């Protein structure tokens, strides 16, 4: 009879490549301001690491099928190491396995697969639950330790959203009832106008009860900062990331604090590690999850935060050399 060919491609192991043979592709889930630092980091990594190429391709448009296509197209183009923000954490492992089967090192960047296992070589991502926890804490502090808090976030059917909800809840629970989580509004990150409308309606309905709004998604953060300022309400808004708009809000006071992640670090350290893996190193612990750091920034440290973040990035790089990677 009929037999199935044995899976010898994975068994064969990855070929070792010199840095100039390594072509790295950084593929975000779609177009989003968060990923814009990846672009610069990619260019910088290319020159600093001396690798063949580092490209940035955001055409996957928040669609797993399209992302898979983009990845395969890049592979066909000769890219042989991948840093990927998986569109759907639930089945991104399948995509990672595909890439691994071809012998490519893979990094899960800025988000980790849902569930227990991680089929990428490593996951370098914000601990979103921790970041949300810090954000909520910042909000609670700005509120003076008591009052009603609202959480605005993204797509409800997304494991990261679930983790963020848990993080905020944890911070609120720790106040022992002094702070109440009045409402968690999900699905308001789809587009800016939906977020603006939701914020306006929320403020209209409960504006005078709310003392703080913590945002764990981009569009609602922009909308909340603006809506609160416009309504001239004394609500403390905690935003996410450091997009121009958010920083402007921080400066003019409409944003009390923002929780930064480390996209540039993810891209540069990720690229570095990928290059190493392509060169014959292996992960000491395959599928390890590494927090790329999150930082609460207020008006006071607005000019200095980047140094902290750079320090974290350097530290991450060292940790890869010393702990995560094992090279002969």
């Amino acid at each position: 009879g009929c037999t199935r060919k044995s899976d010898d491609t994975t068994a064969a192991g990855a070929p070792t490549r010199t840095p100039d043979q390594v072509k790295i592709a950084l593929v975000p889930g779609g177009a989003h301001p968060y990923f814009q630092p990846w672009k610069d980091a990619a260019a910088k990594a290319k020159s600093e690491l001396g690798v063949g190429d580092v490209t940035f391709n955001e055409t996957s448009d928040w669609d797993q099928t399209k992302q898979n296509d983009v990845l395969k197209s890049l592979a066909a183009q000769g890219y042989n190491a991948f840093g990927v923000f998986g569109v759907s954490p639930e089945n991104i492992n399948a995509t990672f396995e595909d890439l691994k089967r071809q012998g490519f090192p893979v990094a899960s960047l800025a988000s980790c697969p849902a569930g227990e296992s991680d089929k990428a070589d490593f996951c370098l991502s914000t601990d979103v639950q921790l970041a949300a926890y810090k954000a909520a804490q910042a909000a609670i502090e700005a509120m003076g330790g008591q009052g009603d808090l609202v959480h605005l976030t993204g797509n409800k059917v997304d494991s990261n959203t679930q983790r963020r909800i848990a993080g905020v809840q944890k911070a609120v629970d720790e106040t022992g009832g002094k702070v109440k989580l009045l409402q968690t509004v999900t699905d308001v990150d789809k587009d800016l106008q939906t977020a603006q409308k939701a914020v306006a309606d929320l403020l209209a309905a409960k504006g005078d009860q709310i003392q703080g709004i913590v945002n764990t998604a981009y569009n609602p953060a922009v909308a909340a900062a603006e809506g609160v300022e416009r309504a001239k309400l004394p609500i403390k808004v905690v935003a996410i990331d450091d997009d121009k708009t958010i920083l402007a809000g921080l400066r003019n006071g409409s944003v009390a604090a923002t929780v930064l992640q480390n996209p540039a670090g993810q891209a540069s350290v990720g690229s570095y590690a990928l290059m190493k893996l392509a060169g014959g190193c292996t992960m000491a612990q395959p599928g390890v999850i590494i927090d790329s750091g999150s930082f609460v920034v207020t008006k006071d440290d607005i000019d200095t935060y980047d140094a902290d973040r750079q320090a974290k990035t350097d530290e991450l790089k060292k940790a890869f050399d010393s702990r995560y990677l094992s090279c002969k």
Partner: protein
Amino acid sequence: MSTGTTTAGRAGLGGSLKEVTARPEFTLAVLAAAGFVALAVATDGNLLSRGTLEAFFRFLAVPIVIGLSQMVVLAIGQMNLSVGTLTGLCAMVAAWLMLEGGLPAPLAVLGALGVGLAAGLVNGLLVVFTRINGFIVTLATMTIIEGLRYGVNGPDTFQGYSPWLRGLGTASVLGLPVVLVLALVVAALVALFFGRAVVGRQLLATGGSPFAARLSGISNDRSIVIAHGLSGLLAGVAAVITVAASGSVNSSIGDDLLLQSFAAPIIGGVALAGGVVSVAGTCLAAFLVRLVDVMQAQFDINPRWIDLIVGAVVLGAVLLGTVRQKLSKGSS
């Protein structure tokens, strides 16, 4: 803005009371009023507080205008799938003109309207020259416009443009947001256009019976181009309102508008087959959908339940229409 379902010159001005109550707009008006009162009571009057009313009406302006933008093409029996992304593009262009182009706000507004009109005309001309169904043409142009919309500023947000324009977005006259007044003025003009203007009547004739219209010397091609052009222009108006009222725009603007653009006219009693429009119905339907929005915020309902409810409301409204039609047929 009293124009109801505009098809024929109606039998007599005003018509009998029975005729008035038999119109779909009447049902919608009753529903809207009842819903509003019910929500006001359920929120202990919070709905009637200044801030809430203001927010309610401010975010009613775009749904009205975008509904009209779709209605204009439905009038000739076509659809425009690009209204949403086009609104986004126009909004981005306006912001770009002010921030990067350094143009004063009024010129940027004209620029946005111009882009809307031009894109609409291109849609119309493509339909005429390729003879491809408008649904398909605008499906393709929607993709193109999506690319352009993103091209203006990537994923980043524009804000901090003209204080005058943003001031206009928050200003009120007689307790009504200026942007809503603007939307209502636009609605009145559209009603006048379809009710009384020769060109508007010709559009409806094209929608009602293209062949008969042609035999009466009406150029259906011209109707198609005008309808799509007007639809684009109205998308431009929606964009201007967005830019003014929201204070910041990015390439996601317009993503929520496509379904809304259909919901308002369809619930408002506009026939997909063409030849029938209802400005009042469209406005009332937008009002109803907005009520649902506000209800969600007031009672902290999962937005996914809102989708379910809106779906049910649309189905309910059309079902009601059919039942009533059957009843009125049975009685005559």
